[in-house]
């Protein structure tokens, strides 16, 4: 996982925790049933029930309810939790039966107090504390009563553990591994074309190889320095043609489509072959971080929107739509590996899958019968708006996948 992703994940969690708190604090049952939230100015009946909790190495969530067989009213709960431990800990609120997690506080500092809010319905819940350096402490089970009529309950989710996600990551890594020989062969073909001076064929083979690579989903530097060598972008203020340090697909694209001599192209296709060889040789290539697997489908489409839909990567071939098509395949594949885990956890998964499919169909409508792709700039305004809307709608549906597929502790750990 890239630094960016790790930070994004961290802040997403922070933001969620804050949002949970705020929403629950002021939620009004009178408005809760509406499709959209309403102002909370009249939320007197639903003022949250507030609790001061403590957590340490052996106890977790003491202060919620009153000892054994504790029972509290349902609805908005406002917690102030003090970490009495001398090490940071993760704190969860779990529903006992479903094992769903309703609240998650990552890395609460040693000696720190943190606040959180959640809206709970009838059920049996408990806190679980996971100190960084010792065994988890599981709190007493608390019976929560029914929420006031109309309250909007916070959504919980059954955790996906690091182990579960690791299995997905291994399967995905194997798939990536299995695609690499094809990439190698296609790059070798491109190189052979260039060596022979057949630049017309080289153009076609460049596209084939490039789309293969784009299907692997290297979004957000999944392949690290290899990606910079294989598919890098020109430095700021330069073009793919003028940037002397640039190598890889876009350098070759710039040379091929600007009429550069075959020798210049061949020098770069040789380098590309070597770069792909070192990608294949790197044992890290197929080792996907389980943290990343949930982000992948979302980030691939984000990258497609940022770099392809804008035409930013175009170094002359005008094949951004082809790249977007490959990226959508890539996102669909990445999502597919998570399908069984998401099926029960993400109600809108069918919508996300349908959006990916219909967007891809729309993109492929620009693949002409002669095999060429319509340049982005040839699209009419209406076509362009429809394309932008389709990708925008898809990426909105993929965003929750990363949240749901974040590795979490389970009550059994």
């Amino acid at each position, binding site marked *: 996982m890239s630094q960016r992703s790790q930070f994004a994940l961290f802040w*997403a*969690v922070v*933001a*969620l925790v*804050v*949002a*949970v*708190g*705020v*929403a*629950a*604090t*002021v*939620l009004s049952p009178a*408005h809760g049933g*509406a*499709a*959209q*939230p*309403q*102002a*909370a*100015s009249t939320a007197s009946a639903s003022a949250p029930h507030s609790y001061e909790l403590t957590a340490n190495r052996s106890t977790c969530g003491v202060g919620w309810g009153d000892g054994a067989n504790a029972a509290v009213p349902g609805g908005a709960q406002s917690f102030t939790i003090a970490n009495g431990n001398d090490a940071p800990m993760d704190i969860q609120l779990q529903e006992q039966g479903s094992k769903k*997690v*309703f*609240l*998650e506080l990552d890395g609460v500092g040693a000696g720190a107090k943190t606040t959180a809010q959640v*809206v709970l319905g009838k059920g049996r819940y408990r806190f679980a504390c996971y100190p960084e350096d010792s065994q988890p402490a599981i709190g007493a089970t608390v019976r929560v009563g029914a929420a006031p009529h109309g309250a*909007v309950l*916070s*959504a*919980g*989710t059954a955790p996906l553990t690091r182990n579960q996600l690791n299995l997905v990551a291994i399967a995905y890594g194997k798939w990536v591994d299995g695609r690499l020989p094809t990439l190698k062969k296609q790059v070798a073909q491109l190189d052979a074309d260039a060596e022979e001076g057949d630049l017309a064929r080289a153009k076609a083979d460049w596209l084939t190889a490039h789309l293969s690579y784009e299907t692997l989903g290297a979004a957000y530097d999944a392949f690290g320095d290899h990606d910079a060598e294989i598919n890098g972008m020109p430095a700021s203020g330069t073009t793919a043609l003028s940037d002397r340090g640039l190598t890889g697909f876009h350098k070759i694209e710039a040379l091929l489509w600007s009429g550069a001599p075959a020798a210049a192209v061949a020098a770069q296709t040789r380098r590309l072959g070597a770069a792909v060889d070192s990608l294949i040789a790197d044992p890290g290539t197929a080792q996907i971080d389980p943290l990343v697997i949930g982000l992948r489908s979302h980030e691939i489409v984000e990258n497609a929107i940022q770099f392809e839909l804008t035409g930013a990567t175009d170094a002359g071939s005008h094949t951004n739509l082809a790249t977007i098509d490959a990226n959508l395949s890539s996102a669909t594949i990445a999502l597919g590996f998570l399908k069984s885990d998401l099926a029960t*956890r*993400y109600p809108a998964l069918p919508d996300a899958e349908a*959006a990916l499919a219909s967007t891809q169909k729309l993109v492929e409508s620009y693949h002409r019968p002669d095999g060429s792709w319509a340049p982005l700039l040839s699209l009419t*305004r*209406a076509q362009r*708006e*429809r394309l*932008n*809307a*389709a990708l*925008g*709608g*898809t*990426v*909105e549906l993929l*965003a*929750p996948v990363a*949240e*749901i597929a974040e590795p979490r502790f389970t009550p059994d750990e």
Partner: protein
Amino acid sequence: MNEQSSNAPSRRGFLIGMAGAAAGAATTAAVTAGLGAAAPAAAAAHAAGTAARYEFHGAHQAGVLAPVRRSTSLLALDVTAQGAAGLTELLQTITDTARFLTTGGAPRELGITAPPSDSGVLGPEVTAGGLTVTLAVGASLFDGRFGLASVKPSKLRPMEDFPNDALDRAICDGDLLLQFEADDNDVVIHGVREVLRATRAGMQLRWRRDGFSSPPRPSGTPRNLMGFKDGTANIDRTDAKLMDQLVWAHGGQAEPAWVEGGSYLAVRVIRMLVEFWDRVGIEEQQQMFGRYKGSGAPLTGSSEFEDPHYERDPNGDSIPLSAHIRVANPRTPGTENQRMLRRAFNYDGGIDANGNLDQGLIFTAFNQDIERQFVTVQKRLIDEPLVDYISPVGGGYYFALPGARDASDWLGKGMFA
């Protein structure tokens, strides 16, 4: 920059209302009575530092008659949703989002399974911030895509090129126009973000222009970027009877029934050649407008809200017969029903290749009948002296939908009845 008659400085009245003064309270009461809706929630709340809130539900959209606020964003959009069902869902989503944004409160809590439902630009709790979100439809919405051709407002059409125009069609027209308007920029931007996020697949931005209304300098009507007070003689939006005659469209005859309570909206993005203008002498500037630059008074008078009394100046010795205010609103019995409700904003948009500033006016005007009012007046203004210093570049004709009556209603529902 058309001139209308009336001497009600609406914005000033609103500001007094915000301060809780007696006169302001009276204004607020009048607005409430006249509109049944578009009044600030409680003057007391303002004193406590809480921003104004405009009631979302009503016969009319609140943004039409609400006082002009400091910040606005106009978004022209094309619908990408498919068919009548797709458009219906889109309009319902816009309505739901606008209802929440203009009411304020805690954003929807999605739990730990999704990114936050709100951008957080306004902090954990969304302030109403004096926000209105006004939705209007353009002529292109009534083509074959949504089966609405038979219910098009009769006067709705793409905006024509007037003789002095330099329209760039890339910043004209659109299936929809959304106007966000609030006391502060962040409230406007937040609203724009949330609505676009909620409708990502259903509509796409076609063009956009942000604007602002200046504070009174030093008093009276806000000034445009030519330095003149703009809107001094606007019609009195608190006069319900007048609004019924000049702003609200009525169903029946040529109009489909659903237009009742809506209003034709003319939007003109008018570039001002401010560098050129600043090189023009004060006498010439004032003669072009027909008003004193400093006070805003008509050149026949001495204070801003005075009647220009054209009958005492029949030959244009004080206010030339070609002056903007005189041509736009001659104040003759035959032209009274041509007046419209103007809501003008300044814009400041960047630079030209020649190094000049792109500044100007976002002229918006609500009309009962766009032909009888805006188009007639605009035709009269053809070749007015001011045209050398302005250049209309964008905009369009739209129809501001009737209001959403209650929590189960949605903007545009009447089109599908």
